[in-house]
């Protein structure tokens, strides 16, 4: 049993490796240790808190790098916002004048520095096109995207957890064979293809759900959810299939462990062993993958929002790229990057919460 459990911890460490490697800078890189005087507070001494702080500290250069990369990419693109705003037949004088007004004629690093300093004080600038504050745009658009993400995530878990658990009950059985096949095909479906199929079937043929548009929560929770159901399904089903395959393998692995044999030997009914012992212990791999896939998941909303005409961040992003609206684009990129970092951090904290044996202290401490 001891051997088994050490193995399991090793596996976990290996599974969490990319994340763990992110959190532990190689020896030699400077790292800000918490001041010794504060260590007398128990909370500040707890390994979880230290982990959170360390992860947040290492996230700073990553988020900074993302903003710089975003600025660079947008700067390297041919054409600029002034040209895009004025259209193709604007005279060079007009373009130059507008460029000057928008400070686009300043050198690259000056513009980046100005943006960065104001961003650090919480002001993300104004949209070059509409003049609206970027933060206002984000506040207006993000709730739709977040609701869609959350809904899709719940859909994917509602598919993955029950299906994987029951498939693992009898590996090779009928249910397992069918769901394994469906999951493999399902994870090959692109969200936009599924979206079109769902529209074709549920909206055009059956008229069960609206094909386009979005009803705000103020228009009633029911119709709000109805307008988001098809988008959430098209986003959540493929990723749910992916999670299913992963979780099924993990549950099967857990069922080989000694504690499962012990539980059976004690006379616990099989379903109880499965639901209360094996499945909860299989969640670690899923958490890792959810965190690693967060970026892809976010990216997937862009196209799904386009298809269903949802007024989320995806539509704004698409416009911002076409009009070279760098403040808006930067704002979106920062939000996405921060989200990915926060989700990664949450995953690490969840490991520690689920398994008290996991310690994120540096070896040798």
């Amino acid at each position, binding site marked *: 049993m001891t051997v088994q459990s050490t193995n399991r911890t090793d596996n976990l460490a290996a599974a969490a490796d990319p994340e763990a490697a992110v959190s532990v800078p190689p020896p030699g890189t400077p790292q800000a240790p918490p001041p010794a005087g504060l260590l007398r507070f128990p909370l500040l001494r707890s390994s979880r808190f230290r982990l959170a702080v360390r992860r947040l500290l290492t996230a700073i250069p990553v988020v900074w790098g993302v903003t710089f990369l975003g600025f660079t*990419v947008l700067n390297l693109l041919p054409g600029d916002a002034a040209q895009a705003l004025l259209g193709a037949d604007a005279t060079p004088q007009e373009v130059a004048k507008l460029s000057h007004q928008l400070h686009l004629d300043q050198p690259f690093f000056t513009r980046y520095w100005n943006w960065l300093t104001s961003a650090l004080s919480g002001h993300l600038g104004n949209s070059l096109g509409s003049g609206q504050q970027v933060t206002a745009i984000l506040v207006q658009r993000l709730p739709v995207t977040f609701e869609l993400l959350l809904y899709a995530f719940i859909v994917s878990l509602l598919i993955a957890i029950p299906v994987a658990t029951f498939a693992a009950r009898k590996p090779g059985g009928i249910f397992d064979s069918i769901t394994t096949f469906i999951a493999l095909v399902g994870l090959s479906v*692109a969200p936009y293809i599924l979206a079109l199929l769902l529209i*074709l079937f549920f909206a055009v043929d059956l008229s069960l759900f609206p094909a386009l548009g979005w009803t705000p929560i103020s228009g009633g929770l029911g119709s709000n959810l109805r307008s988001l159901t098809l988008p959430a399904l098209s986003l959540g089903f493929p990723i749910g299939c992916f999670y299913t395959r992963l979780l099924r393998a993990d549950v099967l692995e857990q069922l080989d462990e000694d504690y499962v044999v012990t539980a059976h030997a004690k006379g616990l009914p099989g379903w109880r062993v499965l639901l209360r012992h094996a499945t909860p212990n299989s969640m670690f791999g899923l958490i890792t993958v959810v965190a690693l896939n967060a970026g892809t998941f976010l*990216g997937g909303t*862009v196209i799904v929002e386009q298809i269903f005409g949802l007024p989320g961040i995806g539509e704004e*992003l698409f416009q911002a790229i*076409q009009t070279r609206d760098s403040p808006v*684009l930067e704002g979106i*990129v920062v939000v996405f*990057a921060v989200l990915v970092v926060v989700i990664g951090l949450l995953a690490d904290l969840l490991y520690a919460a689920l398994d008290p044996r996991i310690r994120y202290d540096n070896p040798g401490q």
Partner: protein
Amino acid sequence: MTIPVSEAAVAAIPAATASRARGRLRQTLALYVPTGLLAAIIVACFLYPLVGNVPPPVGGSVLDAGLPAGTAGHPFGTDTSGNDIFSRLLYGGRVSLEVGAATQVIGMILGGLIGMIAGYSRGLLAAVLMRVLDTLIAFPALVLALAIAEGLGPGELHVIWALSFFSVPAFARLARAATLRLRDQNFMLAAALSGTPRWRIVAFHLAPNLLPQQLTFALLGAGVAIIQEGALSFLSLGVPPPGASWGNMIASGMQTMSVRPSLVLLPCLALLITVAALNLLGDALRARWSAR
């Protein structure tokens, strides 16, 4: 004292052999069915238009627009511009397969190299590489792909560059994790102790050990790249019409979806089958190589 041998146990032996044989058959099928499917798709897209009687995918006459499936010379009918749908499916498949293959080759070579260096070298270089990789991974890749595709203008080659920003960091992360696992194993230490130059260790001791994992990952990644190419074409940032691509076929078919769903369904199906075949093959290879 004799040990009681139940008859069931004896009877179970041939049953077990049979089930093992069935398992082996299943494994073989899992490998050869997707391989055959992929080979068929590749032959159909690249060779069949050269030998078969396939009309050109573009330049159809409006007089032929909207012919139903089964019309002479047009097995799947024609689209709203009068182009043969079957031919567009084949030529669109070329784009998808080329993009899938190219992004993975670029990712495997460039990303593999970066990952091996980041995993094998210790010190500043590894730290800097890791931060760059972290940044690339945290950066919403679709934003990058959209921006690059928009900036460079539509076109197959530009899609390949844009999508390589997905594949390179993914391969690099994979190669780095594998390198970290292998770095301190005995055969690596033995090579280092016997004075093998570092580049030789990386090229001839490390890289061959990473190859199986990278190849299976490339198959799965090709599926993702094909889906992304479809997405970019769908957003009219990929292959510009009238050129054929599954993505832009889906996008243009969407306009007449309620009247002629087959214009959307056929390219969707082609994309789904191709990606599923890639996933199945990657899966079978992984099962085979991890069992070893």
